[in-house]
């Protein structure tokens, strides 16, 4: 891992006052936009982003430049939608970027909108991010007043209007098509694809949906170029990533690291686990991803290495569990989350998460039977790959990896008729 001399995404950690327009401009803010408008044709920016190898930071890791180039070229106006519905358990990177460095997001959105020729953009911000919403409201007002937003941005032919929309508290609206439904005022259920957003997205327009962190990468990328971006990470996963490290570490928080850092390095950056305890397992990319046991801590966090190790980078929410963790209780808690956040549209996710939650609660409470493990794995198999949207798959990844890696612990719960670690599930009342 190459050490960073400064922060690029978490710039506010080095530069106090950057959350205001004045402070941001003082640190060279909006010079990326000015450079883009003055020196680049829109398509050249798309090419630059392609060359940089920047991949979507929302979870799927799709190459950003390629996504932009899929936009329908039929003359209809396009739209940029920024997914700020950061709801993945264990992930809080977008929140910090929004709350402390809002202008970098706005500048990045302007660059992306210019590159994709979008006259309008929308930020769909998670309903619980009330503070972030207020920060962005203020920042958009500042940028509008300064001429970065509105008609004829900075006197050029490029006009752009930005809209901020606060969600109503549904995890599923982080899925891009459910986000678009919600943004349009409907029930937040994922949409059928095709048509993909690039053809018919928000209000039927060709739409790019990008994650906050993806967009925040654009200003430094424009200023420093593709090679600068490629100096970090790996060939296929270049660049920097903000990792949210949480769980049993002594200094939980966001850490900006090159994409070739290892999980062990991350845990160490976060102060390691409590004295006298060992790492038991790590979920590298938010609760939707399979866990990796302590033995795999030396896995680098780039997209490919994590897939090879049996998990995924996802949104970069790294949840560290030490040896005091009851893995059954952790699984029960996570699956319960997916039961509660399933939108209800498709059968396997809606019913399967309910079923698994009930069985897991019973297991954790010492009322399990040995057959339950096979049932859980079979139910998971009946969900996996068969649900309408990725939420179904997300609900089973952690559970299946936990049973695979810690089957003995599950069996102990069953044979011992109680939790060997004395864990208690809070709120196990069925409602």
């Amino acid at each position, binding site marked *: 891992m190459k050490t960073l001399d400064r922060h690029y995404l978490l710039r506010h950690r080095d530069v106090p006052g950057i959350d205001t327009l004045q402070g941001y401009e003082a640190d060279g803010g909006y010079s990326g936009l000015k450079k883009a408008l003055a020196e680049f044709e829109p398509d050249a920016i798309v090419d630059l982003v392609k060359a940089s190898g920047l991949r979507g930071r929302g979870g799927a890791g799709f190459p950003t430049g390629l996504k932009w180039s899929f936009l329908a070229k039929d003359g209809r106006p396009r739209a940029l939608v920024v997914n700020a519905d950061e709801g993945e358990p264990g992930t809080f990177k977008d929140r910090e970027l929004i709350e402390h460095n809002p202008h970098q997001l706005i500048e990045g959105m302007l660059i992306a909108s210019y590159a994709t020729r979008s006259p309008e953009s929308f930020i769909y911000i998670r309903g619980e991010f009330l503070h972030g919403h207020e920060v962005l409201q203020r920042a958009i007002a500042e940028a509008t007043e300064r001429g970065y937003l509105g008609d004829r941005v900075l006197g050029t032919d490029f006009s752009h209007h930005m809209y901020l929309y606060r969600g109503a508290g549904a995890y599923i609206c982080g899925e891009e098509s459910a986000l678009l439904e919600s943004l349009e005022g409907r029930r937040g259920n994922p949409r059928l694809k095709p048509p993909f957003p690039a053809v018919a997205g928000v209000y039927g327009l060709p739409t790019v949906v990008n994650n906050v962190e993806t967009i925040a990468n654009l200003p430094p990328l424009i200023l420093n170029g593709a090679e600068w971006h490629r100096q970090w990470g790996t060939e296929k996963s270049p660049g920097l990533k903000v990792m949210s490290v949480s769980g049993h570490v002594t200094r939980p928080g966001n850490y900006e690291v090159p994409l070739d850092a290892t999980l062990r390095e991350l845990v160490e950056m976060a102060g390691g686990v409590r004295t006298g305890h060992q790492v038991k397992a790590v979920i590298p990319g938010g609760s939707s991803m399979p866990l990796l046991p302590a033995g795999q801590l030396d896995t680098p966090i780039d997209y490919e290495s994590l897939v090879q190790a049996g998990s995924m980078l996802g949104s970069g929410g790294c949840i560290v569990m030490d040896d005091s963790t009851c893995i059954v209780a952790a699984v029960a808690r996570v699956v319960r989350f997916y039961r509660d956040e399933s*939108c*209800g549209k*498709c*059968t396997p996710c809606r*019913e399967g998460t309910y079923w698994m939650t009930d069985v897991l609660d019973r297991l954790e409470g010492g009322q399990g039977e040995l057959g339950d493990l096979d049932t859980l794995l079979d139910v998971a198999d009946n969900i996996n790959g068969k649900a*309408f949207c990725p939420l179904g798959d997300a609900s089973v990844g952690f559970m299946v990896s936990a049973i695979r890696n810690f089957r003995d612990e599950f069996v102990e719960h069953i044979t011992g008729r109680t939790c060997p670690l004395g864990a208690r599930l809070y709120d196990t009342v069925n409602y």
Partner: protein
Amino acid sequence: MVVDAAATVGIDIPVYCYHQALGPLGACRICLVEIEKMPKLMTACTTAATDGMVVHTQSQAAEKGRRGILEFLLINHPLDCPICDKGGECFLQDYVFQYGAGQARFEEAKIQRHKEYPVSPYILVDQERCVLCQRCVRFMGEYVGEEELLMDGRGVHTVITNVPGIPLTSPFSGNVIDLCPVGALLSEPYHYRARPWNIEREDTYCSQCPVGCSSSVTGRDGQVVRLEGRPTPGQWGWLCDHGRFTYDFGAHPTRLTEARLDGEPVTVGRAAQVLGQRLAAVVREHGPDAVAVLTGGSHTVEDHYALRRFADEVLGGSRAGLVKPVEADLPLALLGTFAELDQSDTVLLLGTDPYESAPVVHLALRENVRRRGLVVKALGDRHLLRDTLAGEEWVVEPGGMAAALAAATAGVSEHPDARLAAEGLAPADESLVRLGQALMEPGALTVLWDGREQDLAPALVALARARGEHPTRVLPTFGPRNWLAAARVGIPTDYETSRRILMDAADGRIQVLLLWGADPVRDFPDGDLAARALERCPEVYFGGVFPPDGAELLAGVLPTAAWAEEAGTYVNMEGRLQTGRGAASAPGQARPTRNILQAVARAYGTPLRKLDEWDPYEGTVDDRLVLPPLEGSVRPVSPPPAAESGFRLISGLEVALTHDPSEVAARTKEDRPARMHPADLADLGLLTGSGPVELSSGDRSFRVGVRGDPRIPRGRVFVPRGLRGVPINRLGGIAVAVRAVEEVASR
């Protein structure tokens, strides 16, 4: 989609959420199939079939996926099939039986939800049985455009419900019962009434309006207990609630079930014998011209055939005519079809709002607008377009539609007939020229017309001729339901024939008038003439299902069998013959028309031979009437009536109000049938937006309940035709005085 492609080769892939009319959704996942070269199972309802695609519906993976989905659907589904109305006709039962696992693995608690929760007077929701396929929600919200059902809650707690406190009022709501693949949406009137194994379920066609929607009638113990929509090729099988929930009319308390002579009950045989003898005596003494037959157009084609032969052969050439509630005659050469409507480039609503007069046609129009951008224009004496059917409309003075149409045509076309029809009319203004241009657009035009304004017939012929090669078709939205049956057997259907018969009856030139299902006092546009005819004709006999207005004047009554009580053929508004089967038995002494007429013929001394050997379909093409060529000259259209001060009366036909008497459909029957602009109501002092009013013209008046409707222009009163106790056909002119009164005396 793969599921449709599979169906064409006879492979059944189970579906819940998918419906061709609603498009793919991908929610239920029951249609999982394995497609080669695709990494995971795909839903057959959302995957387009492509050339060379290899699909496995019975591979191990596909079967496991399907079995898993069914298991998921069952974990929160109650095991109450034995008391479920849908038990035995349920797609969840069927698919679990066919594809499901034999044993349940789910041992946790099921979620309890509302059962038998009413979302309208007709519809119950059992939320426990719901599989959340969203068919009902999407049908109401997207297809009908009336968002009255919605999904509430999230995840496993999601339920289908109505907007809290607001029951469904859409006339298409009942279709969700048919659309529901499981026992979640139930018909309240059918609730706990029958099981699939003790019913007769027969193919039929709805009897309540001339659309003739294909449907299935359910009979139990000789009574009709249910009507369902029945999809046929090219039709989705929608019904409107007016048709769906009127199925019980045959058992209505006012139904005729016994024969009467001079008010005294007698057997049908006795009544037929007396009628036959009286007819024989009158014809012997006064000749066949002293007897006339008027049909109400509600009996079957076979019945009309018997009636026609009875008039010809038994009575020796007596006159026959049709009583219909409108004054104009459709040039039959222009009669269009629903298939032509689906191909039309432009549709003109002419005086009619199909949502009211032929509701399922409204759905067809909306689908055509949404699917392929059908252009809708409207010309009427009130606003005919709605939130759910957009277009452009022209609202003209009452009685001015014919003049407007003729002027609009002549304003754009040089055709001599267009000019002739518009002779003497003011030339089209800019607005009417725009209408003319829209109607003269190349491509196919279909006109929906409710048969008001006699001069619209020549105006339509002129338009059709002016359009030349471009097809012009007319779909008549007026009833009676089976009036084209009269045309099929050669009974004149024109207004003038029946008017002359009534005139002669009123003048004493007709000794015996035989009304067969006809209610001229209520329906005939000149109600005074009809009333005089009944009063002055020495003997009026009536055969039918419900007593007509003026029943006290009848010399004899013969109760006939009704729809669904026997097999019979109907002709719908596109001239298509449709044979429905019976599922119930005629109550009391009610007997098929053919049997009664045969008994009368025997008493007369001239039995009808080989009555049952006639085939209604003989000589039809594709089950449709053969239309005459468009002949005859066009006459000039009269100028519109001069504008008068005060309120003016406008009218139309509404299935919701004029369907047969029904105790089930009475649950939502409107008791304020007249409509006025809300501002006019306020001016009358009816500040609550509805109330009773008295309409008067000259020395005539009647009272009627009125409600506010902003689609009625100011200064006009809309009163539907053909309503018992609302004698709009006896007011005379179109200028009326309106005043608010204390109590409702209508209906």
